[in-house]
């Protein structure tokens, strides 16, 4: 294949746009994971499933409607509600009881894998059992807002993802650093006993944390499925990216968003160049994020882009 | 005069802007029994942690038996003959008391994925040996001496605080040190037992063991040690025989916080 200059130019623009979209979504997803980790110290593997469940909820609700703005709003609300409820339930049924028994971070991680298994495979099982389509997308049109050179385009999903990610990150940062609730969350995270003595209802704070994180996951799940069809394993397939973004961001909100965008851009742009010039399959592009994750954990486990201090290194 | 076995030169160590050690130079001679005292936060435990290799100093040197061991990992210092106990006993909680003691004992056989299997008959014989040099003999004698033999089959996390402290001391004794550092061996221990512990230490000291001990119970400590080093705000304030130190007004000032 002769590489055409126009193809390269517009392909680059297109992959930049897609990378921005994907990266914003990774960043948005990482925000919820970050919130859970900051408040409860759980590296939550089940988080991916809240995203998937939310996408399915959006599909189910919007399919019952005629489409258009109503379906969009109904899908969004359903996704966020289901994400929040799934998240809260997993805490109430699994994580909180374990935390009460003094489970360590590794036990909670294993438990979160267990919760993830139960959720993911019951969805898969139910989908197969009831003959649901294995790829779903909400019944909402994704309008093309502008095309560039006939190859690259900007759609509603692009705008929605970027705006949602930025607004959520700013909102979370303000909530965490400026409000009483945020202060209570930080107090609960650093010393639950002390927080309780000083009059903070740590159970309320904990529930709020899980609801909020789940709703963020739900929002991300809706936007992802708005752009790209979803299957029962979509969340799981993105999970290591989400972790990569959260860890690169040192579990800070702005850090997670920026890291997510960098990872998304790297995946899309490098994938495009590798397939165009080196004829390397785009299937390798996930490896970029995984290698980034491993390198960050090995050499800067406290995060690359961190806007608050946070120690994660092994303490000896 | 006996040779110097442990020497530190101008040790400095900070934690996030707080100077825990601010130029500490000390000397311990072979066969000495030395106490280290000072108010809370004066840097005593940090000094032990730096000497025993748990922390690396920011600057300064540590010499053990004349060898520069600055920044060495603890397991290499153990091989040279330095053993330490902890203020809060860091026992291996899921193991039995007897296993804790046996794990710390010097002269090891069968520690390796191959030697544990290939050298089995040898380490089995050595471990079961109840005589002077066998592991079982040594461990049992130490546990009996410290009066914790009756809990030897309990998990280390399921015994009383005083027994944990004694288990930690049993590990230190079985480590068969040439230089023994103990960080508050009597913390959380009944007063009667405190004296028993120091009696045992004194006996070991008379057999030639060099002991350097942090202790808050000065009334006990001063009856046993030959020399006391006083630390304050990361420095050595003074040192000398117990009676000299106890008469030094600066020491009282340091403890009262008005120095």
């Amino acid at each position, binding site marked *: 294949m002769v590489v055409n200059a126009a193809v390269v130019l517009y392909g680059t623009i297109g992959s930049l746009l897609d990378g921005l979209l994907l990266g914003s979504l990774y960043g948005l997803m990482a925000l919820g994971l970050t919130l859970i980790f900051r408040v409860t110290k759980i590296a939550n593997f089940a988080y991916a499933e809240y995203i998937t469940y939310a996408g399915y909820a959006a599909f189910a609700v919007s399919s019952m409607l005629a489409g258009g703005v109503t379906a969009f709003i109904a899908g969004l609300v359903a996704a966020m509600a289901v994400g929040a409820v799934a998240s809260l339930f997993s805490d109430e049924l699994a994580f909180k009881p374990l935390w009460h028994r003094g489970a360590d971070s590794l036990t909670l991680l294993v438990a979160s894998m267990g919760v993830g298994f139960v959720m993911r495979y019951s969805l898969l099982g139910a989908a197969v059992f009831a003959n649901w389509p294995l790829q779903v997308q909400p019944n909402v049109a994704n309008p093309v807002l502008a095309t560039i050179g006939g190859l690259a385009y900007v759609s509603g999903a692009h705008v929605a993802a970027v705006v949602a990610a930025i607004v959520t990150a700013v909102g979370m940062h303000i909530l965490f650093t400026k409000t009483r609730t945020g202060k209570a969350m930080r107090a609960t995270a650093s010393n639950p006993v002390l927080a309780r003595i000083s009059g903070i209802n740590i159970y309320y704070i904990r529930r709020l944390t899980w609801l909020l994180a789940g709703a963020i996951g739900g929002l991300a799940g809706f936007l992802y499925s708005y752009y790209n069809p979803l299957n029962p394993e979509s969340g799981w397939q993105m999970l*290591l990216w989400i972790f990569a973004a959260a860890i690169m961001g040192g579990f800070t909100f702005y850090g997670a968003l920026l890291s997510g965008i960098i990872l998304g851009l790297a995946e899309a742009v490098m994938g495009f160049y590798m397939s165009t010039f080196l004829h390397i399959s785009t299937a*390798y592009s996930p490896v970029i994020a995984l290698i980034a994750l491993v390198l960050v954990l090995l050499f800067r486990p406290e995060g690359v882009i961190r806007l608050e201090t946070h120690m994660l290194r092994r303490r000896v | 005069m006996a040779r110097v076995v442990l020497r530190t030169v101008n040790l400095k160590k900070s934690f996030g802007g707080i100077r825990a050690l601010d130029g500490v130079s000390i000397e311990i001679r072979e066969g000495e029994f030395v106490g280290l005292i000072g108010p809370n936060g004066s840097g005593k435990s940090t000094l032990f942690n730096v000497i025993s290799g748990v922390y690396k100093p920011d600057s300064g040197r540590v010499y053990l038996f004349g060898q520069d061991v600055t920044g060495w990992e603890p*397991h290499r210092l153990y091989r040279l003959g330095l053993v330490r106990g902890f203020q809060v006993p860091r026992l291996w909680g*899921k*193991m039995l008391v007897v296993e804790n003691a046996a794990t710390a004992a010097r002269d*090891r056989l069968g520690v390796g994925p191959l030697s544990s299997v290939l050298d089995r008959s040898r380490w089995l014989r050595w471990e079961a040996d109840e005589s002077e040099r066998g592991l079982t003999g040594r461990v049992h004698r130490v546990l009996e001496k410290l009066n914790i033999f009756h809990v030897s089959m309990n998990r280390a996390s399921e015994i009383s605080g005083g027994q944990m402290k004694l288990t930690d001391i049993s590990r230190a004794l079985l480590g068969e040190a040439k230089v023994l550092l103990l960080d508050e061996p009597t913390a959380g221990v009944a007063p009667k037992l405190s004296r028993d512990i120091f009696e045992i230490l004194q006996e070991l000291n008379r057999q030639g063991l060099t002991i350097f001990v942090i202790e808050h119970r000065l009334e006990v400590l001063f009856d046993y040690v030959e020399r006391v080093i006083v630390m304050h705000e990361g420095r050595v304030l003074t040192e000398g025989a117990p009676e000299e130190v106890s008469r030094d007004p600066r020491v009282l000032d340091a403890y009262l916080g008005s120095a």
Partner: protein
Amino acid sequence: MATELEGILAQWLTYFAIYGIMALSFNIEYGFTGIPNFGKVLFVAVGAYAAGVLASTLVLMLAAPALGVEVVASGEPSYCTAAAKVVFSQAGQVLSTTTLFAIFLAAVLAAAVAGAATSIVASFPALRLREDFLAITLLAAGEILRLVTWTSVWPVCSFNGISGIPSPFTHFLGRVDVLYAGLSLLFLLAAWFYTEYATNSPWGRALKAVRDDEVAAEVYGYNVASIRMQSLLVGSALAGIAGALLVFYSGNVNAGTFRPDMTFEVIAAVILGGAANNLGTLLGAAVISALLILMNPSSLDALGVTLPQGLLNALPYLKYVILGIVILLVLMYRPQGVIPEGPLKTPIVEKTRRKLREYLARVGGQPGAGRQ
């Protein structure tokens, strides 16, 4: 009916052997040493690929000339070609059982060595990261290997994998699956004896000391870095062997097998049975492998269980739902596992137990009454 039952039993025993070896290996690392090697599947895969590549290369070298088949490869490993498949299927005509067994044993050995060699890479993060981040790192490393081998022709023929690798029992008639189950169980037995001997020893105490308090272990003369590495080395060699057994069981090796789910199955076995307890670990492996085998439409069919079609289709997923629930219940209600960790079986513990009993008889106390 009876033969079908035999088939299921053989399948279960083979799985039990393979999962048992993996679980023993994970138990050394996680149970005894406290290293959460959530990249277990990485080492199994490395072992499987090493075994698959070596065995297929050897079979080609030895059988192709004799069969007169010319294997020409262009840009791909020769064992990926269609001609190679022909050689594999006819290898039995020219290779004796002795040769096939030699190839098998060489492949198993290669798998152990390859697994152990890979562990040196894994020990790099294992010495630096706190437990949960180490777990994520190793999990990600496993996924990297799976994605790369899924797409890359070198060294394992991308997603097609290497298939049709001849079994050492090619010349045997009758129940080859039963024979293979027996062979696998021999390996499990060897792994069991090794693990029991190696862990009930001063080395086992050192591993547990590193797990329970690594600073204290260092201070009492144990080189924590080197002990962690030893643990990973042994664990990974065993995982490699399990990978090789998996290859000769199906005759295939391909990236699709090595999903993180497999690691989770192994974790489940160890946590269910009881961490730092070799017997418990085997029990866990037996239960988990039974679950994996039974939750299979063909097994249920053979057992005469009839289920609605929809449920049958969902069965492969339902088994993981059950697995997840089992893990959660164990973590909540019996975190120490079915058979909890006990003292190591060493002479000093035996002698102390006996002496303590005499002592208590003398003073008239109760064992364990030492708490004050």
